[in-house]
C-alpha cells in the first residue's frame, strides 16, 4: 500500500469529514492559484530584488535588500521617527483633498446642469488644468509663504481640477432619455436631480476622486521636497542626502502604501454606493 492509498483510506474512513477535508484542500489550492496569478509577479519581483541585492549583483548601496528596507521601516514607524512625518503628510494631503471635494463636487454638480455657466467657465478651467500645479508652486509660495498654507494650497489646486471636470462631465453625460422619462412622470427639477442626475453622475465622480487622491499624494511629495523639514516626501530627500538608503526606500514604500490604501478605500466606498455597476480596481 502506498502512502497515498493510506491517506485516501483514512479520508474515506472518516466519511463526511474526509470529504469536507478534501473539499477544503481543493478550495485552498484554488485560492492559492488565484493569489499567485494576481500577485505572483509582484512576489517574484521582490524576491528577485532581495536575492540580487544580497548577492551583490545589484549595488546594495543603491538598492539595499528588502529586509534592510523593512527593518528601516519598522524602526521608523514603531520607533516613532517616521510617525511624525506620516502624520504631517496625511494632514497636508488630507486637508487639501477634503477642501477639493467640498469645492469641486457641489460646483461641478451645479456647473454640469447650467449650460451657460459651464460654457463660460470651461475655457478657463481647461487653461488652469493644463497649467502644471508645480509650475505655479513658486507663485503660491510668493503669495502664501513657505509654510503649510502654500503646501496645502498647491495640493488643493492640483486635486481640484480632475474632480471638478469629472463631476461636470458625469452630470452632463447622464442619459437625457432618463431625465425625460422622469419628466413624463411629472418629476420636479429637484427630484430629477436627486433621483436621476446625482446617482447617474456618481461613477464619474468616483473616477475624479481616485484621480484626485493619486494627484494629492504626487503633489504632496513634490511640495515636501521643496522647503519642508517634515513629511514623508522630506524624508525621502533627507535620507538620500544622508545616504540612509534603506530609510529612503522605506519612505518611498510608505508613500506607495498610502496611495494603495487611498485607492482601495475609494473603490470600497464606490462598491458600496454603486452596487448596480461593475467597479474595477
Amino acid at each position, binding site marked *: 500500500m502506498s502512502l497515498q492509498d493510506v491517506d485516501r483510506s483514512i479520508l474515506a474512513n472518516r466519511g463526511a469529514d474526509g470529504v469536507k477535508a478534501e473539499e477544503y484542500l481543493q478550495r485552498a489550492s484554488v485560492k492559492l492559484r488565484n493569489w499567485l496569478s494576481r500577485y505572483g509577479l509582484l512576489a517574484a519581483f521582490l524576491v528577485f530584488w532581495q536575492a540580487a541585492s544580497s548577492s551583490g549583483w545589484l549595488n546594495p548601496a543603491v538598492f539595499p535588500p528588502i529586509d534592510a528596507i523593512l527593518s528601516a521601516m519598522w524602526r521608523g514607524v514603531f520607533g516613532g521617527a517616521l510617525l511624525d512625518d506620516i502624520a504631517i503628510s496625511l494632514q497636508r494631503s488630507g486637508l487639501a483633498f477634503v477642501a477639493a471635494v467640498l469645492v469641486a463636487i457641489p460646483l461641478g454638480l451645479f456647473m454640469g446642469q447650467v449650460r451657460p455657466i459651464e460654457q463660460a467657465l470651461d475655457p478657463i478651467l481647461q487653461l488652469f488644468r493644463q497649467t502644471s500645479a508645480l509650475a505655479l508652486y513658486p507663485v503660491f509660495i510668493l503669495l502664501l509663504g513657505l509654510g503649510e498654507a502654500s503646501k496645502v494650497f498647491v495640493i488643493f489646486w492640483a486635486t481640484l481640477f480632475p474632480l471638478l471636470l469629472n463631476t461636470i462631465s458625469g452630470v452632463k453625460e447622464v442619459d437625457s432619455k432618463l431625465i425625460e*422619462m422622469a419628466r413624463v412622470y411629472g418629476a420636479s427639477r429637484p427630484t430629477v436631480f436627486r433621483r436621476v442626475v446625482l*446617482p447617474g453622475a456618481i461613477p464619474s465622480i468616483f473616477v475624479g476622486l481616485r484621480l484626485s487622491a493619486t494627484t494629492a499624494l504626487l503633489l504632496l511629495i513634490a511640495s515636501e521636497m521643496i522647503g519642508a523639514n517634515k513629511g514623508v516626501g522630506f524624508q525621502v530627500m533627507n535620507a538620500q542626502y544622508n545616504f540612509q538608503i534603506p530609510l529612503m526606500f522605506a519612505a518611498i514604500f510608505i508613500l506607495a502604501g498610502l496611495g494603495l490604501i487611498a485607492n482601495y478605500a475609494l473603490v470600497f466606498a464606490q462598491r458600496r454606493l454603486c452596487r*448596480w455597476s461593475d467597479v474595477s480596481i
Partner: protein
Amino acid sequence: MGDVQTLKKGEIALRDLSKSFQIGGRSLRVLRNVNLEIRSGECLAIVGASGSGKTTLLRILAGLDAADAGKVLIDNQPITGVGNERAVIFQEPRLLPWQTVLENVAFGLEVRGGHARHAKERARHYLSLVGLAEFADAYPKQLSGGMAQRVGIARALTVQPEILLLDEPFGALDAMTKLTMQEELERIWRDENVTMVLVTHDLEEAVYLADRVLVLPKSKDSNPKIIEIDLARPRDRSEPGFVRYRKDLLREFGLH
C-alpha cells in the same frame, strides 16, 4: 356615490394640430392641421413612413413637445404639458440602472407623490402582472431586452393612467419576444381599461392590437387616413381577414 367606471375617461381630441421643425435654417412641416378624436378605452395605432410625424404627434400628446398651432384636449381639458392621467412607454425601457426592478416600477408613482410603501405594494402587483415578480430585487442590467421593456410597461401601469402612450415599444425586440409582448399588451389593455395610442412601424402589430389605425401620409398635402380594424379579439394573424387588413395597410405605403 357615482360609478367611476362608467365615467368617460381618457378621451383625446386633437384640433388643427400643426408642428414644424427648423432644420438647417429651413422650416420642415411635420404635422399639418391634424384633427382626430380618440375614444375612451380604444386602442389607436399610428403608422406612417419615417418622417411622417408619428413620433412627434405622440410627443405632443405626452406633453413633451408643444404644438405650433392647434390644441390637444383630454377629457375636454386642453393640456399644457405632461399630466398625471397619461403615461408613456418608450422604445427603450429607460430604467434607472442604479435602482432595483421594483424600485424602477415604483418610481413613477413615487415621483407623483405616492407614499413609498404604497407605491412599492402597487408596483409589486404590476410587476407580477407582467410576469416578473421574482425579479423584483434584480438590477436592470441583469435583464434581457424583453424583460426590461416589461419593467417599463409595469412602471407605466403602476401610475394607473387613463391614457397609455407607446412609442414603438417593441421596435428593439427580437421577432419572437415581440409577438409575446404584443399578446401580453393586448391582455393588459383589456384588463386595465385604458386608452392606448400606439406608434409603430410594424403594420402587423397595428392590425393585431388596434381598433383603428391612423395612417399618416408622407406628403403633408394629403390627409391622414383612418382604417377601422373590425376583427374579433384575440386576433389570429393567419386568418384571411387579418391578412387582408395587412394588405390594405401595405397598399397605403405603395407596397404589395
